[in-house]
């Protein structure tokens, strides 16, 4: 006849096995979610490194096309446009809103292609992911440089129709969304929405290469 201990041991093993099974599944699900949250940031970084590496050998248009694919698919420009225009957004009709989103896309793409135009051994390093409100997450990374201090690049990411997208970029503590919202509000207040659009078109034009590449 088996002792009490001999009955308990198999039961304990089964319970422990069940615990390990569910823990592993939870851990696996957590890792998978983190990878999904990180995905748009990783893709942006891969594209940035690529356009930096090929800046001397490829044309502005080629690099623009690469960035366009990332910006239009991995950034929620509609939400970003809504936030940067704050209370002025509601006063715009649907066509103007759509046009502004397209304009903002062009500005974002041109800015990235213009700024990341040379390669000196830079690389991006993922640091952490922190939860925020409303199912948003802060993805923390840094850009490491050979002869300079690293630059902190943090991204706010939100789920949009089952896809995680970037809604803000924070470089060394400066939130691009807040910066633009303050500027755009000031320009609209003083000169009107059309003046803002004109200014943004001029900026996009200034970011293009002076000679065809």
């Amino acid at each position, binding site marked *: 006849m088996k002792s009490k201990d001999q009955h308990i041991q198999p039961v304990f093993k089964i319970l422990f096995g069940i615990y390990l099974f569910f823990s592993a599944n939870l851990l696996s699900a957590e890792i998978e979610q983190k990878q999904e949250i990180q995905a748009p940031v990783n893709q942006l970084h891969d594209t940035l490194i690529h356009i930096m590496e090929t800046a001397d050998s490829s044309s502005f248009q080629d690099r623009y096309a690469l960035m366009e694919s990332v910006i239009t698919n991995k950034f929620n420009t509609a939400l970003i446009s809504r936030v940067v225009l704050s209370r002025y957004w509601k006063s715009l009709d649907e066509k103007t809103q759509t046009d502004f989103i397209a304009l903002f896309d062009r500005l974002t793409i041109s800015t990235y292609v213009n700024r990341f135009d040379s390669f000196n051994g830079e690389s991006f390093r993922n640091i952490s992911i922190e939860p925020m409100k*409303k199912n948003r997450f802060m993805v923390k990374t840094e850009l490491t440089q050979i002869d300079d201090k690293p630059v902190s690049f943090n991204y706010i990411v939100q789920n949009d129709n089952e896809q995680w997208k970037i809604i803000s970029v924070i470089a060394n503590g400066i939130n691009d969304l807040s910066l633009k919202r303050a500027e755009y509000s000031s320009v609209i207040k003083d000169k009107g929405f059309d003046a803002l659009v004109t200014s943004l078109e001029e900026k996009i034009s200034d970011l293009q290469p002076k000679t065809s590449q």
Partner: protein
Amino acid sequence: MTGSHLFNLSKHLIFIGILSIVAGCATTQTSDDVGNVDSLESTNRVFFDVNETLDKHLMKPIAETYVEMTPAVIRTSVTNFFDNLTYLNVILNDFLQGKFDQGLTDILRFTYNSIFGIAGLFDVSTAAGMPANDEDFGQTLAVWGFDSGSYLYIPFLGPNTVRDVTDTVPSTFLNPFFYITSTILYPVSALNAINTRANLLEASNLRDEAAIDPYSFTREAHLQQREFLIYDGNPPVTGYDDIFSDADDEESGGTLVIE
């Protein structure tokens, strides 16, 4: 303390006092989006425009010439020298903020650079594992719970806040140059100003490329950069949710439709 030192001190105290009174009495003249952070916006914009004009026609061309004519290694040494002179203020504020380990390391950093770095010309401490920290009395007051107060744009000094401008006093007293009465003070101070402007050329060019309203851009970048420093490069994520509050409210009300 000599008469000239008392004069310097009194100038700084009167300046800060006037600013505090002006900031305290100012009516709120802000756009809805900036709230009360820029209650002196109209005055600040005037000072900003004056500063920008002087910078465009005087400081920036001088700084650009200085960069063209001075090898980078010498400019780096000049930067190191003046940064080292201001490091006693960093050390003081390390301790005032309760960062005792950092304070002790910074004492070593200052001593090491002053001796082995030849009066701070060479930053040997960073290579020795003691990188520079950035602390000042404005950050200390923030750690102690003081709000920033109104944004200020001060002629020649640039962007600041009522809280952060108080750093002028300890940073002046703790800078060994404050105690120099020789006429060498003037060309050395000029060199410091030109070198500082030269170090900001890239940032100012970036701003000129990116900004459609340079005043707002400068203000927002400065205020956010200060928050970044106060939290030693790790501000809490909760502060970043506020900008989405309108969009969140509309979404929860079911009225937000963006295609």
